[in-house]
Every structure is written in C-alpha cells, then in structure tokens.
C-alpha cells in the first residue's frame, strides 16, 4: 500500500473546526490512499490533500469540484463501499472506507467518458426522446447506452441485509432546522412546557454560526449549552424532516441513528411544526461556473472554518453587498490573495476558465485576473418546501430578489429564521423565541392570547441570477441556461413542463441550488418576470430518502390456530393463507386425499370466519345479505349461502345454522371474514339500525376441525357419546350442540367441502387442541390422517366446489358461478337485487361462466391461469383451479369461459404455459367426483 497523499492544504487549527487532529483515519479514493481526521467529510479530506475534481458531470463529463461543501453539494456524490449516490461533502470519513467517483471511468481525474462531450450537440434537452426513439429495432441497444450514461452510481445487486428501523414520535412540537433560529424556537417552546424534537440535517446543531466568527462562536456555545440543559428537548442531527403531509403528519429520516440500524424513519403528528431551515446560497450562472475552483461563499467558509482547508492560492470574490466581506476576511486569514468584485455595482462576471479547474477569471470589459478560486456570493434561496407542502403559496419579491412564502393557512405550521426574513442575530433570536412560545401555546391548547411575533424585513438585493454568458443551471443534471431556453422555444414554456423536459431541478439534490435559476432562465427566455413564471409544486420528500428507510424492518405478523403446535410437531408444511399460517400438507397430499376418500381424515379449519347472530331479526338480515331464501330454516338446520355486493358480484360464501329460535351461527371464508364482518356491521349500524340483531365476531372463540371420510361417523361416535349421529336424526345440512371428548358447548355440523360424509366440529378455542388429539386418538385404529389445505384443495376441485376469489373474479355473479339455483328474486329486498334480476335475464351476456373441465389427455394438468382460447385463437376464458386427481387418476380443473363455450359436452382449447394447445371437455355440472352427492348424504 502506498503512503497517503500529504495534507498539503490543511490550515493551522481554526476556532470552529470540527476535526479531531489527534487521530488519523485512512481511506481510499479511486484506488489511492488518503488520510483524514475524525470529523472530516470525504470531500474535506480530499480537499485537504489538494484534490479538486470530485465527479464528472453526467452529460458532458466535465470535471466538477466542491461547490457548497455541505449536504447540498451537487458535485460530490460518490460511491462508498459499493453504495452509490452518497453525499461526499456530508458523509464523514470512516477508517478503511473505499470511495469511488461516479459518472467517470476509470477515475474522476482521468475520465474516458468525457469523449461524450464531443457529442454535445446531441445531448440538448429532450435528447432521450428525440435521439433514441427510432429506428425502433435499435431500442434495446439504446437502452444499454442510456444505462451506461445515466447519472448516479452503480447499484450493487448483491447488497442488502442492512437493518432499517422505524420509530413513532409523540412530541408536541417538531422544529425542522437546528440553526440559531431553530434552537431558539425549541428552547422557548420547551421552556413553555412543550416536548420538542429539534431536527437538523448537519452533523451538529448551529447552522451558519458554526462557520462564523468569534461572535457567532460565542452565541453557538451559549445555545448549545442551553439545549443540553433543557428538560424537554430531544435533538436529532444528520436527520431531515422530509415531508409534511395531511393534518401535520410528518416524516423524518435519521441517517446515522444510534444502535445497529443503518437509517431510521420517524413518523408522527406533532401539534405544531416549526420550519426553520435557514437559507441556501444560490449559485450564479456564467460561462465556466461549474469549473473546479468555482465555489459558493458558504462553501469556502465551511472549508476554512469547519475543516481547516485552504481552498486555493489566489481568489476572486464576486459578491453582492454585504455577503462578500466575511468570506474575504476568512480567505485572507487563510493566507490567500483576494480580489473583491462588487457584484451589484462592479463589472459583470463573464467567465471562468482553465484546464481542469479555474486558472483565470474574466470580467466585463475583457479584464482577466489570474486566480485558482472564484467565490460567488450573489444571494439566497429560502427552502420553504415544508411551508409549501402545508399549502402556502410562494411569491417573488423583486426587491429582495427571492421567493418568499407567507405562513400556511392552518394553525399547525409556523416558520422562523432566514426563510421568514432578515435581521440581526438579536432580531432573529427574538422572532424565533416568540415563534417557539406561540408553538407551545398552540400545541398545549392554552387559551391564553397569541404570542406577539415581530415582523422580519427583507433587505434589498440585486437580482443576480444569470450573468451575461451561458452557464450551468443544474449541476447534477448538467442543464445549461441555453437548454432551458431551447426547451421554451420548443413550446415547453411552463416551468412544470420545462423542468420535466430538461430535467433541471430533478437530480439527486432536487433543485435545492438550481430551482430559482431555472425559473430565472425560463423568465429570460420567455420575456416574463420570475413571478409570472412562478415555481413548481413542492411535494414530499424534501430530500431523497432511501427505499430501505421507507420500507423499514420487515415485520409480517401472522396468526396461528389453537392446534398449531400439534401441526408443527407432526411435520406440517405451512403456507400463509391471508393472515394465517395453515398446514399445506403433512408431507404427502395425494396420500392424504386417498385416506379421506377411503377412510377418514381430519383438517384444521379454525381460520373460518364465524359470527354469532342473536335477536328476533336475524332471519331478516340473512334474507338481505344472502342471495338465497332463509325464512323457514328450522332449529338445527343449516343452509349454504352466497353473498353479493350491490354490484351483484359474489364476494363470500359459507354456511349458517340455526342454533335456537333467536340464535344463528354464520361462517364465512377464512380470508373474507373481516370483509363479511364489516358488511354485516354496515347493515346493522348504518342501513337498518332498527333491526334487532346482536353480532359477535366468534372467529377466535371456536377452534374448528373437519372430520371427513366414509368412516367419520364411526370415529365421531367415540368422542361424541351423547349425540345421536344416525343419518335419520342428524342428516346432511344439520347442526347439533353437544359435548366432545368431555368438552361442553361444542357444535357439530354435518357439512363438508371435500364431498365426503363429514362433520365440522366447533370447540371452544381453549380446548381445540384437546379435542383434536382426542379425535386423532379415536381414529387411530381406522388409520386416520391429518390433512392440509392442499389435499382439501384437490378434493374440492374433484367435487367442483368453487372458491370465491379463486374461481370467481370481480365480475362473477352467482349465475356465472353456478349458484343461480340459489338466487331468489321474490324476496322483498336483497342486496344487489337489480343486478341479480338483470343477470337472470341475460345469461348470454355474462362475461364468463364457471365450468368444470377435463383435458382429453388425462395426464396433462394445465396450470392455473392458463388461457382458454376460441377457434380464432382469442382469449375466451382461463383455468381457475387445476390439480391431478388421485381419485380419478387424471387431471381435473375448473375454468371461467365465455357463455358460448360453456355448454356441457363441448370441447374447448387450453393454451398451456409452454404454448401447446390441448383439448378439454366441458362437464355437465361442476363435480368430477360423485356428481350425485351420494357420499355426502350417506
């Protein structure tokens, strides 16, 4: 390993520096070794070693250097340890980091891609759309080219495994921005009794005080001490309030949280949000404004004062009064020769030039100054995004040469600091304290009079946006002022369209630096004022947020039945079914089917929705929500019912039994139970509150199991000694109360989904496992087998039972689902009645009809979702369920087909997944096995 580059540009210790000089770190940049101190950013450490080029611009591959030296720097996005688009002027160096430049190969310094710059005539606005559209056959090639030259770094497809956290916050007041105003507001709000979260994007609180002179340093020390001493302030640094949503819901991303998480997302709804983001310095547009060595004044001040880096040897400072004085003083202190040009009254700035960086600066009139650093200080942009997200509209103040945003309409967002106006540290402090106090008053719901907040003025500034020559407006997207003008000439004269067409402001920095200059460029191109051009719409997020942070930690809760541990101990393979974990099989579903068909099996059906309905009007409710008839159901009787919505589409089905005169028990599908519950509540609470019905969701109150197979009665008899199970007294479609394996308050239903004689056993949930084990024990001599949902699926397809949502879709009514015989249209009223009447009268106009299909070649099992096609090869339906039937030793299927193909005995064509087309026969009815239902009724 070679020795690290010497820190040739490191200054003597500075009063506000944030680097720890006693320790040294080593890192790699484009394959070379560099040294850093703790506290150095990647960019500051490289600048301390004299590096000037940090990236290449994405279109023209021009070299780019430090511009702002902070989180907003559009020229310092780098790849760190495989992660692309890291803010290199913000991220602190870690020992052993491997950092690479982006948009450049092999390095930012020697970039072969810069030959792209020769193609500049083709890379104007909209070049994607114009150049790479035709001829059409070349589009895959174009895609590859565009990918190679798209901005940003390379994504490491193998990355992952990091943890992202989420946290909900409950503070009364959130202050976005930890500069002097934000700190003062937070202190005042906390002193007034509010719990405050103070959030700042930098690594420490303090804002511009951090790189200020002795006065600012003293003020900063005082504010930091007050925050540390305050009771009710929590501080987050390296964190951003990225969005303000409806009713003051806010999102914050914490980029270096404590603990093991990579990033943390915070969400919450503070009573009041105080926006105090400060101001962002605006670049100036002129020829060469993107050369390494052209920097903003705040960037220079950060380099010198925070990182003790000498940014050059000879500087020209082009500054509007009074912003240039402080940076000029810093530069002189750092030992640079400085020439100050008054941007308001002096000669215009024409250009900066040089090979690979600034070597000269040219002023209006042709005078050239030799310099390696050009500092501009032309004005400020107020990052008012949070206020705009809250509904406030920006307007352009010509005197102050910036957009200003009034307070939003609602009471829950306030603003203070530089985005509101200007003033001395004392005036700004007074405004911030009053704002903080008012925030606390609102947040705590105090009735006291509103706190008087003084006005802050806006000083006059020259309108310095575009110089006399063309230059870069958006550094990240490599958009020039002339590109914006060209787009306007093509008709993109609205800022919203122009932005999207040129991609100005749409890069990783999201236009923090470029938005106002883009508006100015469009205004100049179209002869309008900035106010007339207006701004684009602010939408969250204010800064890019990683998808990992938004997704958070993977958290997927699931529900298990009372018999879950038994299934696990007996080799069950589980699948997720809605919220539930259910045994898919115990290893051999085909054998499980055979066991049920020939003997007896037991399946856990506890996941079924169950509703206890009591009261004199239950039958009226059932008549209303089911398509079929319910009057006249005797106590102990059970009916199958299907529910439709007002659109006449089937959305659930199940059985309901009458337990006594005024008590019914309804079941629904497992996945549909919540929807059914809401649907019943809707009718009982909203539409028919006069009906006397008490609804209790009993889904979790009962464990349920289905004992199925020709020997099920014989097995059940052993655990249900006091119930007469004879076919005469306990026929098909009946329900009986009774004691099972010593457990009272159970119910037995003679129903079934498998097509076999079967009993569904409802057991108070706490005793589910005990009864399950008792039934398994009772069936041991009969070789009882537990079976899972896969075996049940095979048997219900064999039997032709449709599953709502699998064999029906969002257009399938009861007639199409083969349930037409149930529908009663002679009821007074029933949900979806007009649609049911229409369906009954227009059978040939239904989109699809459910049919049972058998492939002519019995060995071919068409996969679910395979298309049914008509004679012309058009799609005429699809296979909805299919399996190999062990009972028939052939494939069996259900399918939705157009009514013209639904006739029994017809042959339809099925296109298999591999493209082959095979014939299949439409059955009469849906049952492949036991169409007469003899087994059920045994």
């Amino acid at each position, binding site marked *: 390993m070679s020795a690290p580059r010497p820190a040739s540009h490191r200054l003597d210790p500075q009063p506000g520096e944030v680097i720890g000089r006693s320790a040294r770190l080593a890192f790699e940049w484009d394959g070379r070794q560099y040294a850093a101190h703790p506290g150095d950013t990647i960019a500051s450490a490289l600048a301390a070693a004299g590096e000037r080029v940090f990236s290449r611009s994405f279109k023209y591959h021009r070299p780019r250097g430090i511009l702002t030296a902070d989180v907003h720097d559009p020229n310092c996005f780098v790849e760190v340890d495989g992660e692309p688009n890291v803010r290199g002027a913000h991220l602190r160096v870690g020992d052993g980091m491997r950092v690479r430049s982006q948009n450049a190969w092999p390095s930012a310094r020697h970039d072969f891609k810069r030959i792209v710059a020769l193609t500049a005539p083709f890379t104007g606005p909209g070049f994607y759309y114009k150049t790479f559209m035709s001829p059409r056959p070349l589009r895959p090639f174009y895609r590859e080219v565009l990918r190679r030259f798209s901005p940003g770094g390379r994504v490491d497809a193998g990355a992952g495994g990091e943890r992202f956290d989420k946290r909900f916050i409950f503070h009364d007041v959130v202050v976005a921005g930890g500069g002097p105003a934000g700190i003062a507001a937070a202190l005042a709000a906390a002193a007034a009794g509010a719990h405050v979260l103070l959030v700042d994007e930098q690594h420490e609180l303090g804002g511009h005080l951090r790189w200020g002179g002795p006065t600012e340093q003293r003020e900063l020390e005082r504010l930091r001490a007050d925050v540390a001493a305050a009771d009710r302030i929590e501080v987050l640094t390296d964190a951003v309030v990225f969005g303000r949503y409806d009713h003051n819901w806010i999102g914050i991303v914490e980029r270096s949280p404590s603990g093991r998480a990579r990033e943390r997302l915070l969400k919450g709804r503070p009573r009041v949000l105080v926006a105090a983001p400060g101001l962002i310095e605006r670049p100036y547009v002129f020829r060469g404004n993107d050369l390494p060595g052209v920097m903003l004044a705040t960037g220079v001040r950060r380099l010198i004062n925070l990182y003790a880096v000498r940014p050059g040897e000879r500087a020209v400072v082009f500054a509007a009064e009074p912003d240039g004085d402080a940076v000029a003083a810093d530069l002189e202190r750092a030992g640079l020769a400085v020439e100050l040009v008054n941007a308001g009254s002096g000669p215009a700035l024409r250009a900066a030039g040089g090979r690979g960086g600034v070597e000269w600066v040219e002023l209006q009139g042709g005078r050239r100054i030799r310099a390696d650093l050009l500092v501009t200080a032309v004005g400020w942009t107020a990052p008012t995004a949070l206020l705009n997200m809250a509904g406030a509209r920006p307007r352009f103040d010509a005197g102050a040469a910036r957009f200003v945003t009034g307070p939003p309409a609602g009471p829950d967002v306030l603003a203070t600091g530089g985005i509101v106006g200007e003033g001395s540290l004392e005036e700004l402090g007074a405004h911030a304290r009053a704002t903080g106090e008012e925030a606390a008053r609102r947040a705590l719901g105090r009735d006291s009079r509103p706190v008087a907040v003084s006005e802050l003025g806006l000083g006059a500034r020259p309108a310095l946006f575009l110089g006399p020559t063309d230059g870069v407006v958006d550094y990240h997207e490599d958009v020039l002022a002339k590109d914006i003008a060209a787009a306007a000439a093509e008709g993109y004269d609205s800022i919203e369209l122009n932005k999207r067409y040129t991609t100005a402001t749409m890069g990783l920095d999201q236009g923090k630096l470029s938005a106002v200059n883009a508006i100015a460029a469009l205004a100049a191109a179209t002869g309008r004022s900035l106010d007339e051009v207006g701004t684009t719409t602010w939408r969250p997020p204010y800064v890019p947020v990683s998808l990992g942070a938004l997704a958070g930690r993977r958290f997927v809760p699931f529900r298990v039945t009372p018999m879950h541990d038994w299934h696990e101990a007996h080799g069950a393979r589980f699948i997720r079914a809605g919220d539930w974990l259910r045994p898919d099989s115990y290893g051999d579903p085909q054998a499980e089917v055979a066991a049920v068909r020939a003997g007896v099996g037991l399946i856990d059906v506890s996941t079924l929705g169950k509703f206890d309905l009591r009261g004199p009007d239950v039958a009226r409710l059932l008549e209303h929500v089911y398509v079929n008839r319910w009057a006249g159901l005797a106590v102990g009787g059970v009916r199958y019912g299907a529910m439709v919505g007002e659109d006449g589409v089937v959305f659930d089905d199940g059985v309901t039994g009458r337990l006594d005169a005024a008590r019914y028990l309804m079941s629904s599908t497992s996945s549909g139970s919540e929807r059914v519950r809401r649907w019943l509540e*809707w009718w009982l609470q*909203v539409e028919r509150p006069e009906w*006397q019905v008490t609804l209790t969701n009993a889904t979790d109150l009962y464990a349920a199991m289905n004992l199925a197979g020709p020997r099920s009665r014989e097995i059940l008899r052993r655990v249900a000694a006091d119930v007469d199970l004879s076919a005469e007294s306990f026929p098909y479609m009946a329900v009986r109360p009774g004691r099972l394996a010593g457990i009272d308050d159970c119910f037995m239903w003679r129903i079934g989904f498998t097509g076999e004689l079967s009993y569904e056993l409802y057991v108070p949930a706490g005793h589910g496992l005990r009864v399950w084990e008792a039934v398994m024990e009772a069936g041991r001599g009969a070789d009882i087998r537990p079976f899972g949902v896969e075996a049940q699926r095979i048997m219900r397809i064999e039997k032709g039972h449709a599953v709502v949502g699998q064999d029906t879709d969002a257009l399938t009514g009861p007639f199409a689902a083969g349930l037409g015989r149930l529908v009663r249209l002679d009821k007074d*009223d029933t949900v979806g009645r007009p649609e049911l009447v229409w369906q009954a009268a227009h059978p040939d106009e239904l989109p699809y009809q459910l049919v049972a299909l058998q492939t002519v070649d019995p060995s071919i099992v068409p996969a679910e979702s395979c298309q049914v096609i008509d004679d012309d090869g058009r799609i005429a339906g699809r296979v909805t369920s299919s399996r190999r039937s062990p009972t028939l030793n052939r494939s069996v299927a259900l399918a939705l087909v157009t009514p013209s193909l639904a006739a029994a005995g017809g042959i339809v064509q099925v296109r298999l997944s591999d493209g082959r087309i095979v014939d299949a026969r439409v059955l009469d009815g849906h049952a492949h096995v036991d169409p007469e239902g003899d087994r059920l009724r045994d």
Partner: protein
Amino acid sequence: MLALDCPNCGRRNGLEFAYSGEAGLDEPSSGGDIAEWRRSLYFHRNGAEWTRERWLHVAGCGRFIELERHRTTNEIRATIGPPPERRTGPT
C-alpha cells in the same frame, strides 16, 4: 395520513379507519331501472368541494362515523357521531 376525530375514541390516525363511501346519496329503489341503478353505483360527482362520507373505526370502537371533508384540502369540518345505539336482541 389523515387524522380523524372519532366521537367515541377521540383523534386517531387515519390508518385505524376504513373509508366506507359517500354518505347522504339518494339511492334509487332496488326495483327500478338497471341503468339508473348502475349510474347511482358507479357515477358520483366527486367535485372539488365538501363531501360527506362514512368511515368505520376498524381498529377502535368498531362504529361507523360520518364526517365532512373537503376533497382538495382534506380539511375536516365536522364529525358527526355514529347513528344512535341500536337496540339489541337477547344475549
């Protein structure tokens, strides 16, 4: 995410509620014309204006509430309580 005021439970996050449609619509009689029925099912005004709507407080009291919301600003003007407690049968 919205914040909704439940008359039973107080101010809660919108995630706890399920939107349950516009309230106060005139429903055509179920014995009427199918075209009229479908118009009433599928074609709503959805204007940039105040709307009355129902929400079910799923993760709270389980009651349907009614409120007035402005469709462009999401401002909520009034929350109306759930319908009167319904009488129940024997338990």
